[in-house]
């Protein structure tokens, strides 16, 4: 009983997912294949949230910045007309470089706004998203001369909103294929996710991870003890941004095309909802929360419109329900956080 009480959110979502699956009337195989696609597209985004949470910054909505740097790298690779593994290597290295630069900028802003990192990171995400749109919609073709004319709009200024990313996606296709529900999937993205998860596992247990936890516990004590709190927080943000960038690359390779202007939007709230559904709080998150949350959230995400269709003859009912859940779970997390803090205060 105590176990259920401590994990109230995941248990509730699990029950909801089961009910929704029952009414959606789909086969288990279909659900499994859909969850697999969504899992490889979003897993690294969710993993990116762990380090900022453990160093006490709450949910880092600025992972949008990481996604943006990946999108920029992909568009540059297409612009330079790179093909095959070279394109993938170029994209990865450029996006890591960009996410280090942007991550440091984000960290500098967040370090100035201690105590309200979450809302500031939302605003940073929005601002960087429009600045990025500005670069590709206005500056491209006007200031930056493109090499590949095919990606430009007819008026000569601005990039098309959808660009084919076959040069990268073809690399992954066909490595370790397996069949599920009549479609062929590749195991390669899963291996990449596992590698990054192991990397994160190592970081959490390394010096940086321990220091980050100390900062997250009590930043003032950490400061007094002589830890360079700002530097530790910056490092966590930079790593988080790199993870997000890698995730966006995986997303695009799986999807096959780049949505230049909208591909990065909404990733942050989905990832936040997934990790919170998995039972994370704003003070502590583990990899277990990530993977559990991803599967539960996306199972509900996939089945709820169909359940709404079958129950109310209206697919949008399920859609409204899931978007309510995605936003509402953050408020629930805040309320739970307050309770644990009060408990702590009464013990002290």
């Amino acid at each position, binding site marked *: 009983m105590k176990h259920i009480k401590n994990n109230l959110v995941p248990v509730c979502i699990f029950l909801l997912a089961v009910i929704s699956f029952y009414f959606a009337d789909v086969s288990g195989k279909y659900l499994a294949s859909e969850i697999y696609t969504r899992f490889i597209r979003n897993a690294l985004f969710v993993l990116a949230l762990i380090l900022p949470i453990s160093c006490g910054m709450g949910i880092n909505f600025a992972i949008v910045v990481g996604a943006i740097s990946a999108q920029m790298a992909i568009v540059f690779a297409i612009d330079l007309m790179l093909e095959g593994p070279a394109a993938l290597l170029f994209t990865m290295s450029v996006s890591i470089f960009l996410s280090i630069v942007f991550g440091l900028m984000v960290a500098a*802003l967040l370090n*100035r*706004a*201690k*105590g*309200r990192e*979450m*809302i*500031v990171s*939302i*605003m*940073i995400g*929005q*601002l960087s998203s*429009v*600045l990025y*749109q*500005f670069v590709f*919609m*206005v500056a491209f073709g006007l200031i930056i001369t493109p090499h590949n004319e095919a990606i430009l709009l007819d*008026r000569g*200024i*601005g990039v098309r909103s959808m660009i084919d990313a076959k040069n990268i996606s073809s690399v992954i296709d066909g490595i370790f294929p397996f069949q599920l529900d009549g479609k062929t999937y590749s195991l390669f993205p899963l291996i990449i996710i596992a590698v990054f998860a192991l990397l994160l596992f190592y970081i959490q247990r390394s010096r940086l991870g321990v220091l980050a936890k100390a900062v997250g516990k009590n930043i003032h004590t950490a400061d007094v003890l002589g830890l360079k709190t700002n530097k530790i927080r910056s490092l966590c943000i930079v790593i988080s941004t790199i993870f997000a960038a890698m995730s966006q690359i995986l997303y695009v390779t799986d999807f096959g095309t780049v949505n230049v202007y909208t591909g990065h939007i909404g990733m942050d*709230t989905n990832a936040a909802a997934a990790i919170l559904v998995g039972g994370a709080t704003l003070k502590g998150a583990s990899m277990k929360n990530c993977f559990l949350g991803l599967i539960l959230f996306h199972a509900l995400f996939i089945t709820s419109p169909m359940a709404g269709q079958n129950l109310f003859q*209206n697919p*949008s*009912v399920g859609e*409204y*329900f899931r*978007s*309510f859940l*995605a*936003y*509402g779970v*953050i*408020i629930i997390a*805040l*309320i739970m956080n*307050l309770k644990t803090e009060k408990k702590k205060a009464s013990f002290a």
Partner: protein
Amino acid sequence: MKRLTLNPPQIIMFCFMLLLLAMAFFIDMDLAGILNDSLIKWAMNGVIVLSLIPMINVGAGRNFGIPIGLSAGLCGMIFALDRRLTSWIGFFSSILLGMLVAVVFGFLYAKLLNRLKLNEEIVGTFAGYSFIPIMNLFYTFVPVTNRQMLYPIGGQGLRPKVNLDQYFGQILDNFLQLRIGPVVIPLGLLLFFFGIAWLIWLFGKTRTGLVFSAIAENENFVRLSGINVNFYRTLGIILSTVIAAIGVVVYSQSYGILHLYDGPFMMSFPAVSAIVIGGASPKKATVANAMIGTFLYQTTYLLSIPVANALLIPEMAEIFRTIITSGIILYAFIFERKPKRA
């Protein structure tokens, strides 16, 4: 009396507006038309921006949960349109019904915010976001009999956009218009806007208004002097929600369309940005802040549209607007004095 000083956002906005004006002059724009539009836009969005004032003054932060108040106003309009109330009766009954709904919504919203003090901004943002799907469910199932508001096929669920022309579209805009040559001053709309602003100013002078600012100044001190802080916070939050409900009715009559579903989704950030431009601090906002801020924000946006079109990149106006909105809010969060932890 404090000396009038300009804060950096205001200086940036003034410079930007002057630049746009120069460009507008350069491309031979109809400046009288721009002035007419800017007056309408000012009052149209002004009431929504005014709704932020009570919450800031009671120390509950900038209200990022505006969609809650807006939804209340939309409900009021739905009820009025369902009864086929037209003209002034429709307009004022929308406002009244919207205010009633807003009291209920505001009370619930206040309960949530009082539980999660010091996190008002993030809670407000997500409360607003998650409230919209709830209202969408309501729009889908509300038993409305007016065919003009329903989906043409199926007959269940309200349309995303309901035309207000037959009901009370532009009723305030066209009331008491004053023509001076090519310039048209919508006196009725402006008087309504100034009237609400005057009431809010007056409220700030009452005893309750003074308690509000005392709470914002030092909550613990006020609590120790035997005042129920949560009661006053609830009052402030309800007041904000009610004014937002009035604001959306004014907005919709000017817009001519009742925009349901995702309509109020992105309306909180522009409003907050406008009041920050007007010079409001996190704990103190005046009517003048809201009015100046809205005028600068809306006029700049209005000017940027024809300039962007002249440059053949029409998306630029919207991009610039969003850059200004989020940049100004970011500025406010990062460069203002930190709030004292209670």
